[in-house]
């Protein structure tokens, strides 16, 4: 079952020319292509974040000018949201692992898969160009009329970039949905699917239904800015708040594009390292779908003080609470999964523990924001900033790293240092809390977000936050170091180093170009650890 020598032919070494990579239709290689671009975007976003945090160590705006600061956080948000978190888990880990997990030879449309990478890169290049030629300063939310009339930064170029990258996301979603429907191996019924696949399915639903709306919205914004259309122009009687409705119709569900796949990763890793079936499999599976669908009903909770009708606000608040329930179900099921498990503390699992703690805080503070009476005070303060970083960095990025650490041996055929992996997870956890917990306090004190300079009494907390950010930076750099090192000096991993179930562990590491020598036939559910002696290679 396991090979201890690196296999001869793998998807990595069948062909090694640059062209063979750039023209590949292999989902595994495309996953790696995404990994490269996304890591670069993450580095870039991190550098912008560093700029933000340095500026905020002092109350005066003395490190960079106000205009530069505004560009920094905008580009940070744009890079992190559209070019890191939305593609991170689905396009990197999903692309790599999902076809393996369902026993398919590839995704349904390999050419479209490659195309979506190119589309993504082109979108990214536009955005990069916008950044190089002076940046954007609208905030990642592009609110009109500022973005359409007042801003004199590269809104158009960035908008085009986001528009194009959106199509990449749509194509990936489409591809995954069809793949999951049509490419499952014989015997792989819906309720034998690994939960990561369920999560990706739910994600692709959101990508398909939501992303086109942001595309058209950005297009309208572009027409307004470039040609003087008047759809959101208050001087013509247009409603700037309509832009916000359309923007959040996508962007709220988009936060679930960011969190659902990491949630799926968590289910995989948790099951593997507790040596147990996930508690309440079908509830966890359906809660993904529920989140995807209900996620479309709550968008105006970003608009509570933006001038919408209070009655409508009430409806959206109610629905926001409702959408928290499926997340609650997931959380409790994860906790219950640990009960009477055989918990093996390996690096991926440590990331999972971190995820649970931080996602919890992030999700629960979402309830503060969903509460109408509190959101009036908290809206557009650092409380919101802390909320979404807890979910997006503490939750989603941690989940992404859990997955990367989990599948790394499969992707590369090499092991990294477990000790360093654990250390990095703990560094990031501590650094993270130090960075973002003070921001909850700042937020309740009333410090508005997107502020280049702030009243003096907020300084101490901001300094703490900046200190934490440096720790965070060290943690991430550490990951990059030992993972890169493992490529070169890492031990050979073998087909199944974690003793995991799941088809992806059935094939060699790194897998064959065509995934499986023979199409697998599936006879049981995804996490049947109990039925067998786990053997760790």
């Amino acid at each position, binding site marked *: 079952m396991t090979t201890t020598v690196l296999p001869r032919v793998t998807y990595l070494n069948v062909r090694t020319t640059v062209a063979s990579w750039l023209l590949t239709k292999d989902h595994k290689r495309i996953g790696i292509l995404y990994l490269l671009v996304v890591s670069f975007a993450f580095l870039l976003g991190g550098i912008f974040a560093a700029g933000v945090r340095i500026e905020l160590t002092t109350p005066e705006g003395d490190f960079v000018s106000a205009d530069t600061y505004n560009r920094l956080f905008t580009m940070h948000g744009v890079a992190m949201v559209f070019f890191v978190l939305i593609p991170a888990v689905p396009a990197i880990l999903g692309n790599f692992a999902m076809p393996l997990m369902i026993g398919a030879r590839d995704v349904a449309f390999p050419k479209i898969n490659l195309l979506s990478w190119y589309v993504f890169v082109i979108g990214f290049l536009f955005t990069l160009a916008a950044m190089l030629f002076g940046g954007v300063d609208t905030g990642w939310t592009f609110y009109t009329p500022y973005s359409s009339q*007042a801003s004199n930064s590269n809104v158009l170029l960035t908008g085009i970039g986001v528009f194009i990258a959106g199509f990449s996301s749509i194509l990936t979603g489409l591809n995954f949905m069809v793949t999951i429907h049509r490419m499952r191996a014989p015997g792989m019924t819906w309720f034998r699917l690994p939960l990561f696949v369920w999560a990706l399915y739910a994600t692709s639903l959101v990508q398909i239904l939501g992303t086109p709306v942001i595309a058209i919205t950005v297009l309208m914004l572009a027409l307004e800015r470039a040609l003087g259309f008047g759809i959101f122009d208050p001087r013509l009687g247009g409603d700037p708040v309509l832009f916000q409705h359309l923007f959040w119709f996508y962007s709220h569900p988009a936060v679930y594009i960011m969190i659902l796949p990491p949630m799926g990763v968590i289910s995989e890793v948790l099951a593997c390292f507790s040596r147990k079936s996930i508690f309440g499999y079908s509830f966890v599976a359906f809660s993904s779908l529920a989140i995807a669908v209900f996620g479309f009903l709550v968008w105006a909770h970003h608009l509570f003080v933006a001038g*919408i009708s209070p009655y*409508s606000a009430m409806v959206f608040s109610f629905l926001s609470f409702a959408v928290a329930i499926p997340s609650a179900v997931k959380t409790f099921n994860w906790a219950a999964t640990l009960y009477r498990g055989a918990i093996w503390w390996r690096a991926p699992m440590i990331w999972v523990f971190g995820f649970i703690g931080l996602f919890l805080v992030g999700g629960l503070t979402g309830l503060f924001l969903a509460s109408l009476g509190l959101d009036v005070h908290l809206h557009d303060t650092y409380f919101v900033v802390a909320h979404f970083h807890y979910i997006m960095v503490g939750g989603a990025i941690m989940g992404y790293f859990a997955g990367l650490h989990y599948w790394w041996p499969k992707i590369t055929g090499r092991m990294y240092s477990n000790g360093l992996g654990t250390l990095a997870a703990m560094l990031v956890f501590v650094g993270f809390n130090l960075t973002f917990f003070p921001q909850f306090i700042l937020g309740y004190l009333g410090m508005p977000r997107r502020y280049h300079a702030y009243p003096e009494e907020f300084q101490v907390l901001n300094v703490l936050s900046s200190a934490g950010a440096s720790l965070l930076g060290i943690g991430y750099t550490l990951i990059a170091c030992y993972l890169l090192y493992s490529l070169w000096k890492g031990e050979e991993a073998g087909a199944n180093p974690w003793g995991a179930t799941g088809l992806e562990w059935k094939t060699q590491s790194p897998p064959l170009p065509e995934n499986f020598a023979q199409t697998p036939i599936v006879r049981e559910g995804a996490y049947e650890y109990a039925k067998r002696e786990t053997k760790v290679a």
Partner: protein
Amino acid sequence: MAGHISPLRTYFAIFGALMVLTTITVIAAFTNLQAWNFPVALGIAITKATLVVLFFMHVKYSSRLTKLICGTAFFFLLILFGLTLSDYLSRGWFTAPGGTAAAGTRVTIGPAPQPAPAAEGRPATAPER
């Protein structure tokens, strides 16, 4: 490959029906139906679209999944329209005692035209495009 093959008759019949409906919708547009003009026009358009979907696009003979997907598109479109309008149409309801709207509410709803004025005589707000 076994796709459903409809008789030619069906296609021409559907085409005929579409033409008739087009004529009806034009006639209806020139008839004063009070508040009903818009719903009627929309109703006819939906009927026409349904015919195209069912027969030209063969959904009538397609799998449940295909039907489900068509339904999904329609459903989420309604969510977009419905929930957004839930804001716009209820903005007028909220009126504080004393007759003034609070918290940024627009005042009226319904058939009344809703101009949003724009002050021109304001100092220095030329957009810097």
